[in-house]
């Protein structure tokens, strides 16, 4: 129903929206560059932290130094790189409310470049597969797990970028036509690849978006499986946690929704994008956010109850490490931020149907997610002997050093930086998606009220 029941809902035309987005695209905002410099500084600080850690080497003794880098890598995979899933999935589900923020999701694919770079030292920090468990079936050669990982992750990043380039084409054509002589306009001409908006081109675009989206959807769980198998399960003696990759995927979906909400909020507040990111977007995303928060608990519990019930020695030690002893505090924090908090907050209609409610919950989820990833990977990297049968001794919780903190901050800043830079090139609101959505709606009177009609073009 129209959300303000007494007002007549009105929509701008798609031409108005295109004009507005292009105007915002063209203007140069000093605040933007100020933020870019801050983020760039933080990113450089992250590199400094990384170099400090690098001095300590990659050997067996220094493996525990790399836990925080790997945790950051996983966190970025599960938030920034999970955004294209939202775009692809919601497009598949034909949800109309996704249109304003779908480009945010797609633009995030650029962060794959930084994440891929971070993968390299993470892989080097892993011990060889001899003597420990891995999915690579005893192939000792570095080609197996290092090469395999690089290939699969690389494919994911490539598909994300291809999806972005494809769906950006009509908008780049709009930029090309709007400001043909500027530097960005010249780049846009190349990126638009001769887009004129013919029927055939639209058909290719739509099927390509669906296809690349589907590939991304299929490949992402594979990448998470490798991440969990190689960086966590392969280092923890005696762990057999088949659900861990699925847990990682669900947590990633929660993270993606949360990051979308936070990004929209920041763009509303500091970018003046209120008319695009309205209550409809926040409300509609709050429902999956609640669902994924409940699923966060469900997947965690499925793993916990299986390990805890049988009181088997190997599993009891792992529980002590991950849940009951060493990393109990991170778990409690994450439990609250990723499950209890969202549940208690988002159950209430007024909280869900607001701008601040889902955003606050989402911010908590992102913090909790980072802590959770730290719990998973720092613990795994602090195990002395991955080849044991039963974990002994149980390493204590490892707090971050200054370099670790710099790496975490640098990684996150680097991704935000990349997103902001790409959004200067590719319009951060999808002109054609929003325009398409506007052409498919109309307002009419219905049972004494005004309601919106949405055409189903499929």
């Amino acid at each position, binding site marked *: 129903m129209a959300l303000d029941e007494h007002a007549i809902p009105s929509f701008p035309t798609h031409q108005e929206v295109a004009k507005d987005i292009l105007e915002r695209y063209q203007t140069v905002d000093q605040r933007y560059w100020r933020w870019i410099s801050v983020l760039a500084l933080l990113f450089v600080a992250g590199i400094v932290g990384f170099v400090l850690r690098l001095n300590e080497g990659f050997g067996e003794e220094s493996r525990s130094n790399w836990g925080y880098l790997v945790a950051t890598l996983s966190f970025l995979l599960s938030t920034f790189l999970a955004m294209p899933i939202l775009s692809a999935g919601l497009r598949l589900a034909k949800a109309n409310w996704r249109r304003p923020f779908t480009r945010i999701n797609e633009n995030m694919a650029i962060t794959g470049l930084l994440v891929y770079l971070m993968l390299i030292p993470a892989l080097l920090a892993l011990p060889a597969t001899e003597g420990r468990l891995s999915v690579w079936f005893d192939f000792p050669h570095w080609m197996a797990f290092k090469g395999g990982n690089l290939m699969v992750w690389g494919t994911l990043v490539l598909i994300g970028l291809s999806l972005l380039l494809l769906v950006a084409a009509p908008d780049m054509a709009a930029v090309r036509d709007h400001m043909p002589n500027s530097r960005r306009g010249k780049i846009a001409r190349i990126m638009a690849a001769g887009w004129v908006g013919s029927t055939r081109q639209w058909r290719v675009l739509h099927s390509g978006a669906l296809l690349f989206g589907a590939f991304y959807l299929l490949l992402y769980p594979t990448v998470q499986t490798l991440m969990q198998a190689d960086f966590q399960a392969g280092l923890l003696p005696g762990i057999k946690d088949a659900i861990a990759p699925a847990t990682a995927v669900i947590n990633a979906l929660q993270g993606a929704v949360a990051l979308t909400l936070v990004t929209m909020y920041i763009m509303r507040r500091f970018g003046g994008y209120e008319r695009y990111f309205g209550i409809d977007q926040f409300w509609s995303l709050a429902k999956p956010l609640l669902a994924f928060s409940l699923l966060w608990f469900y997947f965690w519990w499925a793993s916990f109850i299986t390990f805890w*019930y*049988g*009181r*088997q*020695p*190997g599993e*009891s030690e792992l529980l002590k490490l991950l849940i009951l002893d060493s990393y109990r505090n991170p778990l409690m924090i994450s439990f609250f931020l990723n499950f209890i908090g969202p549940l208690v907050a988002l159950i209430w209609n007024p909280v869900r149907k607001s701008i601040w409610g889902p955003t606050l919950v989402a911010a908590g989820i992102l913090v909790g997610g980072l802590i959770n990833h730290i719990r998973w990977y720092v613990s795994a990297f602090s195990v002395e002997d991955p080849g044991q*049968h039963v974990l002994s001794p149980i390493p204590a919780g490892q707090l971050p050093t200054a370099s670790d903190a710099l790496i975490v901050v640098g990684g996150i800043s680097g991704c935000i930086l990349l997103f902001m830079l790409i959004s200067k090139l590719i319009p951060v609101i999808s002109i054609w998606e929003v325009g398409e959505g506007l052409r498919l709606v109309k307002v009419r009177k219905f049972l004494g009220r005004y309601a919106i009609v949405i055409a189903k073009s499929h």
Partner: protein
Amino acid sequence: MATQTQPQSATDRSEAFRWSMVIDLDRCTGCEACVVACQSENNVPINLQSAYDQGRVLEWIRLERYWEGDFPNIKARFIPVLCQHCDNAPCEPVCPVYATYHNNEGLNVQVYNRCVGTRYCGNNCPYHARSFNYWEPVWPEELRHQLNPDVTVRTRGVMEKCSMCVQRIRRATRSKTPAQIPDGAFDPACVQACPTSAMTFGNSNNPESRVSKLREDERRFRVFESLGTDPNVVYLKQVDTNGA
């Protein structure tokens, strides 16, 4: 249970019993006297050929026989397997009706008249120690007089397993403290029948008992130790003369 003089607190272990068994595989000849003795003592149903064909043999203790080596150096290995009375028994938490639980003497007890026969305990026992009454047990008229009156006769649909002859334990320890019962004063039927004295039974809370001493033997091992079930039955490894 109400007549016991043992302290109620399980933490006061020095006063309580902790029943344990040690089986020396070096002495075991695989004669199955223990199996027969157990059957007569505990009213275990008679296993006809059809029971073996159907795979529904009811045996509270059974001999497992494995062949090792190639001809002509084949060896037969025997291991008598009975309920291990695990301190961390996997069969206990899964019973919906509390028909099996751990008592404060270290025994895993089976309460027949509570059992409804869901058989989850049987699935969860890694030692296959539990048997299920698929049919109503029938004894020929002549044999009914040899049923042990101290032991329930189970009906169809009920799980059963070794109880370490709890009826003998009760009979021997009723109204007595551990100090009043010398080591070896009584034994379960299997231990009593074993011709080579391969099996030893006793109170492992008593440091002077044979069981306590044999448990620390250098040949000791427990079956499936890595599962963490913490069995109360300890085995002593067989030593081959040619060092195997």
